[in-house]
């Protein structure tokens, strides 16, 4: 039982289950009506929208564990959606070619952050703030206020490798979370990321190639944000410069409520995905509560604080056991 409780993600799972249970109870329907929240269709809806944040939150968590921060995911999501849309709609490229090119553009944003952090030695906050501005600006320059309607050129009922469109991004999120969880916990690279976040100097003296590992986390973070952008563009059907405005904060918050410590060295990619789901459930359930629409930002803010405080108390308690 003690070992089970030591699993880092368990407290996040408990919070998510409690949240779902609360809304299932609060939104319990009258009479014989079907439940508006606790049903399979709605669960898919939560997964579909959460995956846009969740995929990017995996990268954000890795950066935070390494002791850095990435403010560019929202802008990279928008830019990749726009690039994919421009090439697919205006350029008449195939969907595969246009999304691959968009992914490369996203990776280039990550490479720019990596160069600024590792070689130019800018603080990650400043470097990724700059990349955020450049990526968002580039998206505006490409669109000039227009948007690219990908959905009109996708045949109705279109599936990706036989998977319905709505399922693709949730499945991608789960697959990526599992892959990166294994990479972070079972591979030397993952341990190096945590070591750098815990104590960069000690990691350096231990033979960790700090610069290379740091560069890799920014590259991965941007590439994952690019995948989110592609998922958003394909599922939403639109590439638009103002999409995902402010999402970087929700993405970082997902990683933090999933257990990532902004001081570095601690966190989990599965936790980040669970964090994105906690937000997803809130975003889904609040519109179902009459009058809650104007309170959702306030509630989300409170939830972040409560969860992080609870997590800190739990960690202190564990430390004293």
């Amino acid at each position, binding site marked *: 039982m003690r070992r089970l409780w030591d699993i880092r993600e368990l407290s996040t799972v408990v919070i998510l289950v409690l949240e779902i249970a609360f809304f299932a109870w609060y*939104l319990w329907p009258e009479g014989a009506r*079907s439940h*508006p*929240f606790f*049903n399979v*269709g*709605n669960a898919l*809806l939560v997964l579909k*929208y959460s995956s*846009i944040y969740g995929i990017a939150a995996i990268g954000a968590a890795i950066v935070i564990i390494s002791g850095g921060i990435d403010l560019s995911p929202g802008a990279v999501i928008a830019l990749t959606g726009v690039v994919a849309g421009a090439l697919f709609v205006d350029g008449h490229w195939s969907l595969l070619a246009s999304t691959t090119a968009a992914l490369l553009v996203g990776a280039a944003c990550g490479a720019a952050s990596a160069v600024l952090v590792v070689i130019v030695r800018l603080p990650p906050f400043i470097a990724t703030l700059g990349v955020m501005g450049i990526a*968002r600006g580039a998206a*505006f320059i490409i669109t*000039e*206020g*227009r*948007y690219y*309607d990908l*959905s*009109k050129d996708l045949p109705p009922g279109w599936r990706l490798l036989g998977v319905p469109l709505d399922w693709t991004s949730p499945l991608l999120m789960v697959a990526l979370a599992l892959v990166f969880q294994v990479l972070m916990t079972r591979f030397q690279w993952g341990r190096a990321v945590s070591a750098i976040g815990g104590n960069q100097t000690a990691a350096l003296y231990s033979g960790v190639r700090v610069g290379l590992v740091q560069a890799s986390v920014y590259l991965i973070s941007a590439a994952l944000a690019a995948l989110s952008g592609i998922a*958003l563009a394909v*599922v*939403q*059907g*639109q590439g*638009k*410069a*103002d*999409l*995902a*405005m402010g999402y970087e904060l929700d993405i970082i918050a997902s990683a933090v409520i999933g257990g990532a410590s902004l001081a570095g060295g601690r966190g989990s990619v599965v936790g980040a995905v669970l964090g994105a789901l906690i937000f997803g459930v809130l*975003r*889904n*359930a609040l*519109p*179902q509560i*009459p*009058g809650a*629409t*104007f309170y959702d930002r306030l509630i989300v803010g409170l939830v972040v604080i409560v969860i992080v405080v609870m997590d800190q108390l739990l960690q202190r308690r564990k430390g004293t056991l």
Partner: protein
Amino acid sequence: MKRFVCLAIAGLALACGGASQAGPGGGGKLRFAVIPKSLDIPVFNYAKIGAEREAASRGNVGVIWRGPENADQLRQKEILESFITQHVDGIAISCLNGDFLTDTINRAIDVGIPLVTWDADAPKSKRMAFYGVDDLAAGRILGEQAVTLLGGKGKVALITSVGAVNLERRLQGVREVLARHPEVTIVETYDIKEDPVRCAEIIASATNRYPELGAWISVGGWPVFTRNALAAVPPGTKVISFDTIPPAPDLLKAGKVQVLLGQKYFGWGSESVRLLADIKAGKLPPSPIIDSGVDVVTPANVDDYVLAWKALEKK
């Protein structure tokens, strides 16, 4: 040295003066600044086209199109102030918040820059003219269309984005009409915060909550700016929305939307430039409020509307 400084200052002054005469196209063109609410709202791209077409047809007018990247009131005010400082020959602005911009608009008029508003007005300011829809009346049309489609009874949910004065006015118009029909109840007013992704998410989630919903009424075009936002809406629920830019007519033809209210998107730009050019020539409009009217698009006239739209695009 003193002589050099004086010459330098004189040179700079001449350069500044010359710049205000030359404008973007040079040769003494009039420089009109056209400011949308935001660069990221698709409808404004048509206003830009309209303004540039009108300017090109006049020959002696250059349009400077600049606005905030997103719906940021302070950024819009900063842009307006920068054009006053540049002393452009005229300003046409769609106000995010007319009251917030009133003092700045008055300052532009006081320093002799003609200023007109389009799409969203600043009625308490000294602006010389406004071109756009009467938002209150347009809101009433939305409400009346909903009541007709619902047969006078049912539940409706409203979609808005809190903060813009013109959207508030439309919402007021909708509520006025619905209040006259006691059997029509508003179950919720959703603030989608100008985010079309959030709009789609809310529509899907609220459809679970209110499967028996009679109608969605949107005072902005967010549900019809994308093809997928209304995917979760069941066939029995009506959708009445502002804005008719593509892909909205396709959604109407597909039966996902029942009524659309279109504005004079190209006219926002072209009429604003025409008004400013007339004012510069000493010709004031007969009335400061120029109601552009709205296009009510239904399945009955959508084909004609699409043909007219294509003609406008090709013009």
